[in-house]
């Protein structure tokens, strides 16, 4: 299997959770075990453009319970003999091998996944991917020349991994408290993206665009926008080092003071 593999360096490893939720796209060669017309194949592919049920295979290091997965799109590309080429956009954790098997079952003739290439992982796309050779070459160039623009040719800031996660921007004065596990209160919010629903994951960013934390929204976008006080998000994974922003909070304040 080949294709887009986002590799998080050092402290950027913490954003992996966001990437798993952001969806994937593949191009796949499916080999049919019998005859089927192009028309039949196209019709069946369209049927799978929906929520599907899957149980992870034996080899997966994940609990083997039946779970639902969304297929965003399943586009027939071409067919030659028993080989079918298609493009699929799906939720993370969807087993394409099982998808091909199930398509084969519905078609009646049976099928298996012959070849798979990932063309997208969240915001990372094939067109912008670099090879291992590129990484080795450019890192060497960077070490020789110490020109920081070389780094940008093959490394992206970890914030790129959060591109598809709805965002909430907070004041400088709120950042350090969040680093210490405090919940985000409404007054700390400067701006946010629309279409955030309660309980969904959001990316908390500083006004400089730095990733502060991954958090769980306690309210919808419209509610967060109009609330005067109250908590709007619980931090789940702090991404910025403590002390980057000054401490603007006191510990152990009592209510009767």
């Amino acid at each position, binding site marked *: *299997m*080949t294709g887009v593999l986002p590799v998080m360096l050092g402290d950027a490893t913490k954003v992996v959770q966001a990437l798993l939720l952001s969806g994937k796209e593949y191009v796949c060669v499916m080999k049919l075990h019998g005859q089927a017309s192009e028309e039949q194949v196209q019709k069946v592919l369209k049927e799978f453009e929906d929520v599907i049920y899957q149980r992870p295979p034996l080899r997966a290091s994940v609990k083997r319970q039946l779970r639902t997965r969304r297929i965003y799109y399943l586009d027939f590309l071409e067919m030659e003999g028993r080989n079918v080429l298609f493009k699929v956009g799906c939720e993370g954790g969807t087993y394409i091998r099982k998808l091909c098997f199930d398509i084969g079952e519905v078609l009646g003739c049976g099928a298996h996944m012959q070849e798979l290439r990932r063309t997208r992982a969240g915001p990372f796309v094939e067109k912008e*991917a670099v090879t*291992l050779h590129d990484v080795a070459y450019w890192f060497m160039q960077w070490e020789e020349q110490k020109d920081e623009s070389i780094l940008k040719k093959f490394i992206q800031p970890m914030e790129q991994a959060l591109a598809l996660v709805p965002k909430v921007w907070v004041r400088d004065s709120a950042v350090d408290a969040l680093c210490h596990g405090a919940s985000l209160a409404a007054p700390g919010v400067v701006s946010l993206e629309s279409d955030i629903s309660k309980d969904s994951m959001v990316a908390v960013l*500083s006004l400089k665009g730095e990733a502060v934390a991954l958090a769980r929204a306690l309210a919808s976008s419209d509610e967060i926008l109009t609330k005067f006080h109250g908590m709007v998000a619980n931090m789940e994974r702090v991404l910025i080092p403590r002390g980057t922003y000054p401490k603007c909070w006191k510990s152990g304040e009592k209510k009767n003071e």
Partner: protein
Amino acid sequence: MPRTIAPWETQRKLLVRTEDRTSPKYGHKPEERPAEKYIRYGVINLDKTAGPSSHEVAAWVKRIVKLEAVGHGGTLEA
């Protein structure tokens, strides 16, 4: 039945709650991080070749870039 929108097809609007500015004294814009930090808080969009496992490839990247920890976003196994 219209199909579900993929996360990369979602359009979001910016909702502004208040005005505020950020102090230049603290933190950095991600693109302006000094080199050592830029690498340590970086992600590589790698085009993985067939053969080695995703874990192996991630380990090679770690060796090239000389970092202690490296992770990857989703296994690509045969």
